[in-house]
């Protein structure tokens, strides 16, 4: 071998050796090592330059890859965080859903159960399996307070589905063991984007409230019954005394006895009103039907309260056509209660030397009774409230009159039960006011329409 070729070989070896550390590192993925490009230009120079360009390109691509990697990694961790958040929220939502004391049920557009919380299972006794995918109206039956089954179409969830409005309702749910649970139900329609509508039902266990109400009604009912016994004995004893009055009692004693009798009768009426109210609350009001002569019924109610009319020197007037009969089909006790309560108000809230005018007219289907008085009237802002149970107007309280606040509540209830109506206006109607120009109080006019046929 010549020296030249020896030298060249050494040169080549030297040149290649310079590349080796770069390749060694590249082989383990490290492209950081630059090539030392010899100062002398020779046939290896393009190779060196080429490898260096490759290194640069690789490094750039690696950098880009790294960057991408990092951004992917950070996105991934964001997704992870979000996922954890969703999971946590789901757990919290479920905990809330299962932790609250109310039953929560979600229904789809067909009224089928898609979700029922733990409390629903507890309150009603149905398992998830018995509820999910089944029509709510068939799984959970609802009854009104008279224990009548409420038809599915009338239930709040159906109304919410139909009308897209919130509905609330008190009723009784039938549990799996067939017992009844008093509940307050609220149904709210849900519309999620792109999906069919559904309903979220929330129902509250009303047992305690219901129990208290039952206890209150039972108490009122019992107290009223207990009161009736001595009141009844008093009444009959007074009647026995009155039979003897002409011979044995002085006129003053007779008069006082009559006052006692009338007040006793008022107390019996009040106790009966209390009993009726508790009976309405319990859904136990029953009606009988008889043909009743309204004029005779008015006369009877007036006779009972004649003493109160006389005491206040009230001028009472009944105008009707004496040639016609005013006959309605009604429950005699309820009609009496209506007339007695209206008359009692007209007397109680009247002034000394005041007037009460009752006018009877009739249409083919009804008898219309109009009663106007010269009493203290009803403040305009309180007019809508006078039919509320136990409501007494501010001026009634001021006038220190006595009353239970049940009279008009019962009157309206009885009337509506047989499709009658009542309208109150205060001041009294103009015609009446014009006939009593010396009266300064606003007065009241009551118009009652009694339907002739009972149509319940």
């Amino acid at each position, binding site marked *: 071998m010549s020296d030249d070729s020896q030298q060249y070989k050494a040169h080549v070896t030297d040149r290649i050796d310079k590349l080796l550390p770069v390749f060694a590192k590249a082989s383990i993925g490290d492209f950081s090592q630059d090539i030392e490009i010899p100062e002398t230009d020779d046939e290896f120079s393009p190779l060196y330059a080429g490898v260096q360009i490759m290194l640069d390109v690789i490094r750039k691509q690696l950098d880009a890859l790294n960057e991408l990697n990092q951004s992917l990694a950070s996105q991934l961790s964001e997704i992870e965080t979000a996922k954890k958040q969703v999971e946590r929220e789901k757990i919290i939502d479920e905990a809330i859903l299962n932790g609250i004391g109310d039953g929560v049920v979600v229904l789809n557009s067909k009224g089928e159960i898609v979700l029922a919380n733990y409390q629903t299972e507890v309150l009603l006794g149905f398992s998830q399996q018995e509820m999910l995918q089944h029509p709510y109206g068939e799984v959970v039956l609802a009854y009104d307070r008279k224990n009548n089954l409420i038809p599915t179409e009338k239930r709040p969830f159906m109304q919410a589905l139909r009308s897209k409005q919130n509905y609330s309702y008190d009723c009784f749910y039938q549990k799996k063991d067939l017992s009844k649970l008093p509940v307050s139900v609220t149904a709210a329609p849900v519309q999620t984007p792109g999906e069919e509508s559904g309903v979220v039902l929330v129902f509250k266990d009303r047992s305690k409230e219901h129990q208290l109400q039952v206890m209150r009604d039972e108490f009122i009912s019992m107290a009223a019954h207990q009161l009736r016994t001595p009141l009844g004995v008093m009444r009959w*004893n007074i009647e026995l005394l009155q039979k003897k009055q002409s011979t044995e009692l002085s006129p003053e004693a007779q008069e006082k006895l009559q006052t006692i009798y009338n007040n006793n009768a008022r107390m019996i009426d009040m106790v009966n009103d209390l009993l009726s109210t508790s009976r309405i609350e319990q859904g136990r009001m*029953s009606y009988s039907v008889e043909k009743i002569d309204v004029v005779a019924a008015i006369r009877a109610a007036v006779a009972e309260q004649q003493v109160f009319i006389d005491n206040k020197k009230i001028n009472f007037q009944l105008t009707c056509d004496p040639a016609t009969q005013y006959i309605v089909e009604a429950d005699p006790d309820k009609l009496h209660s209506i007339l007695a309560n209206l008359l009692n108000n007209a007397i109680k809230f009247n002034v000394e030397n005041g007037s009460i005018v009752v006018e009877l007219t009739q249409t083919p289907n009804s008898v219309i009774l109009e009663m106007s008085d010269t009493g203290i009237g009803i403040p305009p802002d309180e007019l809508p409230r006078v039919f509320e149970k136990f409501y007494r107007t501010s001026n009634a309280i001021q006038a220190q009159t006595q009353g239970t606040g049940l009279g008009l509540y019962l009157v309206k209830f009885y009337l509506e039960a047989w499709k009658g109506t009542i309208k109150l206006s205060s001041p009294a109607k103009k015609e009446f006011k014009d006939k009593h120009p010396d009266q300064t109080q606003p007065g009241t006019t009551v118009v009652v329409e009694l339907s002739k046929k009972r149509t319940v």
Partner: protein
Amino acid sequence: MTLKRILIIEDDAELQKIYLETFPAAEFELLFAATGSDGITQAKQNKPDLVILDIMLPGGQNGFDVLEEIKKDPELAKTKIMIVTNLDSEQKVAFSIGIDAYLVKADIKLEKIVEKARELLMFKET
């Protein structure tokens, strides 16, 4: 004129006194029982023309128990029964078992009871 016999099953002594004063002695013979069981015994023994019956009675048997016992006894088939009570809610049930009148104490005049008794006994087959 034979006296009409009325058995009054009523635990309130004051009401018993009132009945005694109200029914003319020339027309009616009054018997009293203050409990349901005494009422049943007396009804079977004395065969009254009319039983005036309260519903709430002391002791084990109330007015409905008495009513059922009387209805079961063929010998008392002609006995009229008038319930006079403070409960105004039992009318339907009472009539379904078979009574002739139902009066609510505090709501009626005393005279009404005598009128009703006369009315029922007048139509009674003898």
